[in-house]
C-alpha cells in the first residue's frame, strides 16, 4: 500500500513554546472570562449571593471571639477591640488563601473537558480560580476597610507595606495553587491531602493568635511562610507597627521559589495533561 511521506523525519519534537508572559498577555481575555465564570457560577442560584464572600472570614472572627471571651473569663482580662480587629485582619487573607488553594487544586480536573479538547495555556485555569478567590478577598476587604474607618483605627506610613505583603501572599497562593492543580491532575490523592492540610493549617498559622503569644516558640510559628505576612498585616494595620523585615524576606524567598517551581514544573508536565487527566 502506498504510504507517501512528504517531509523528512525530524530527529526530535521541535515545537517552540510561547513565552509564558506572551502567552498570558494574548490570553488575558480568556483569563478574565474564566475568572468571571468562576465568580458567577459560585453565586448563581444562591440566595445569599455575594454575601458568601464574607461568610468564611466572619465565621473565623466569630469563633475566635468565642475563644477570646472564654479565655478572658478565665484570666479576668477584658477582650480588647484591637485584638478582635487583628484577628479579622488576619482572617480575611487566610480565607482567601484557603479558598484559592482549594479551588486551584481542583481547577484542572474540574475542567477536564477543556483540558482534553481545546488548547490554550493551561496555567490559565488555576490562575483564574486564584483570581476568583481574589475577587472574594476584595469584597471582604472593602467590608473590613469600612469597619476600620468606623472604629477610627489610626494610620501610619507603615501602611505602604500592605501591598507588598499582599503581592507576596498572592505569589505564594498562585505558585502553590498551580503546583497542586498539576499534582491533583496526576494523583487525585492531592485534593484530599490539601483538604486535610487546610483544615489543620489554621492551627499552624497565626489567625486566631499572634506569634508573640507563643513566647519563645514564636520563631517556630514564623517558619510557616504565611505567618510573617498575616502577622505583618495585623501589626501594620491595627497596631501601626513595622513588620518583621527579616521574616518578610523569608516569606518573599518562599514566594519566589514557589513561583519559579510552579512555572518550571507546570510547563514540564503540561504536554502530558490531556493523556493523564
Amino acid at each position: 500500500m502506498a504510504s507517501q511521506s512528504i517531509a523528512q523525519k525530524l530527529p526530535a519534537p521541535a515545537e517552540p513554546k510561547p513565552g509564558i508572559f506572551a502567552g498570558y498577555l494574548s490570553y488575558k481575555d480568556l483569563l478574565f472570562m474564566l475568572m468571571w465564570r468562576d465568580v458567577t457560577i459560585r453565586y448563581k442560584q444562591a440566595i445569599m449571593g455575594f454575601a458568601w464572600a464574607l461568610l468564611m472570614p466572619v465565621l473565623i472572627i466569630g469563633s475566635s471571639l468565642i475563644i477570646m471571651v472564654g479565655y478572658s473569663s478565665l484570666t479576668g482580662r477584658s477582650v480588647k477591640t484591637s485584638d478582635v480587629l487583628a484577628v479579622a485582619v488576619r482572617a480575611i487573607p487566610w480565607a482567601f488563601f484557603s479558598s484559592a488553594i482549594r479551588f486551584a487544586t481542583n481547577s484542572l480536573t474540574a475542567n477536564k473537558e477543556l483540558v482534553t479538547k481545546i488548547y490554550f495555556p493551561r496555567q490559565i485555569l488555576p490562575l483564574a480560580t486564584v483570581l476568583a478567590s481574589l475577587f472574594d478577598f476584595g469584597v471582604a476587604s472593602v467590608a473590613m476597610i469600612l469597619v476600620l474607618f468606623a472604629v477610627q483605627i489610626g494610620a501610619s506610613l507603615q501602611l505602604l507595606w500592605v501591598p507588598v505583603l499582599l503581592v507576596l501572599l498572592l505569589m505564594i497562593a498562585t505558585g502553590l495553587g498551580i503546583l497542586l492543580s498539576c499534582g491533583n491532575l496526576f494523583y487525585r490523592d492531592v485534593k484530599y491531602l490539601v483538604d486535610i492540610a487546610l483544615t489543620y493549617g489554621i492551627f499552624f498559622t497565626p489567625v486566631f493568635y499572634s506569634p508573640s503569644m507563643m513566647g519563645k516558640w514564636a520563631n517556630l510559628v514564623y517558619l510557616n511562610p504565611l505567618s510573617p505576612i498575616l502577622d505583618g498585616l495585623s501589626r501594620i494595620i491595627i497596631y501601626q507597627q513595622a513588620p518583621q523585615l527579616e521574616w518578610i524576606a523569608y516569606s518573599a524567598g518562599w514566594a519566589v521559589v514557589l513561583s519559579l517551581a510552579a512555572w518550571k514544573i507546570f510547563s514540564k508536565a503540561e504536554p502530558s495533561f490531556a493523556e493523564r487527566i
Partner: protein
Amino acid sequence: MSHAAVEFQGVWKKFSRGEKHDSLRDLIPALANSILRKPKQIEDLRREEFWALHDVSFQLSPGDALAIIGPNGSGKSTALKLLSGILRPDRGGVRVRGRLGTLIELGAGFHPDLTGRENIYLNGTILGMRREEIDRKFDAIVDFSELHDFLDTPVKRYSSGMFARLGFSVAAHVDPEVLVVDEVLSVGDYHFQQRCYDRMREFIRNGTSVIFVSHSMPAVTGLCKQALLLRRGEPLFLGDTTTAIQMYHSLHQEESKDSDIEILDAAVTDATGAAREVFEPGEQLNIDISFKALKPVPKSHAALLIRTVDGQFVLDTATSKLIENSSIELSPGDVAHVRFTVDMNLRNGVFELGFTLTSEIEIIDKFIYYNGALKRVVMVGDRKANGFVHMNPSAAMSIVRK
C-alpha cells in the same frame, strides 16, 4: 514548502494502555526521572505502550481540505489533538501557521449554569477570540444559531441539538486560518447540518485549510479532494479521496482474513438461476454463500449488506429477521449454505454486496466474519430518474393556456 499552512512531519505518538503510575508512591521517582531524564529513547515501547500514530506526514496549503479516515482506533482523533496542541508528538514536528480553530467537541467549555449569551462569550474566548471581537460578531453568531429566544436561558435547559447549534455557531465565527473538525456534525437536524457543511465550504473557498475527520463518506467526498487513510496509527494512503475511500472499504476484507470461517463459494444469480453481474431495475437477485467453519461458531446469524461504492447503506438484512429460529451454530468442518433473495429496485450504479456473520451470544454484536464487498453488481437501464432507489416513476401533466 515553507508556505504550508499545516505541516505534519514524520509524527510518532505513543499511548499507554493502562495507568502509568497508580499512586502517589510512584510520583517522586517518576518526577525526578522526568526532570533529570536525558533525551529519551522513544523507539522503545514499554509493555503497555503502543503507537497511536506511526510516522504520519502530510501538509496542507491554504485553502486545502484533507479528510482523515480510517476504522475506529486508527489515530484520527489523536492526529487532530496533536494539531491543536492538546497533545505533543513523541517524535516529528507539527506546525500550524495562523489561527487554529477546533471543532473537536461542540460546546466544550460551555458551562451549564450560564446563559446562552454568557456562554457565547466564554466559549468564544476559550476558542481564542478577543472580547471586542465577540462583541462585533455577536449578532452574526446568534443569527447563525437561530437561538434568539433562548439567549438568556441557562444552557443546561437546552436540548442537545440547541447545545450543538450554539457550539457550532460560536466556533464557526472564529475565522480560523486552519480549521480542525472531528465528527461533530452528526448532531443537529438535517437543515442545520447542511448549513454547517455550507459554512465549511465557505471557509475552504476563503483560503482556510480544513482537516476533517468523519465516518460519513458522502461528507468526506463532498468537502475534501484529498484524504489520508490511517489504520492502527499507520498511514496507508495519502491521495485522492475516492481512492482512499475504496481502500478504506477494502480494509474490512483484509481484517477478515484470519477468520473463523472460510467462504467456499459466493454466487450471484438472477431469477432463472443464471450467473449475472449486471441487473436492471426490478429484477430479482439471488446470492448464494457457502462457508465452512474452521473453528466452532457459536449461535449467530448471517446478514446481507448492500451499499453504494461510497459507503451509503441501502440494505441491511439478516437471517434472524427473515427466517424464524435461524441461529447458525457450527462445529469445525460443518458447511453452511445461505441464500438471500432481493428485488434490485436500485438506480444505476455500482453496488457492493456484503456478508457478515454475527454472534448472537455477545451482548454487543460481534462479527465472526465481515466482508463489506463480497460481490459487486452493476445496475443499468434506469433512464427515468436519479437517486438511490428505483421507484418506477411516471408522470402526467396538463397545461391550461389563457
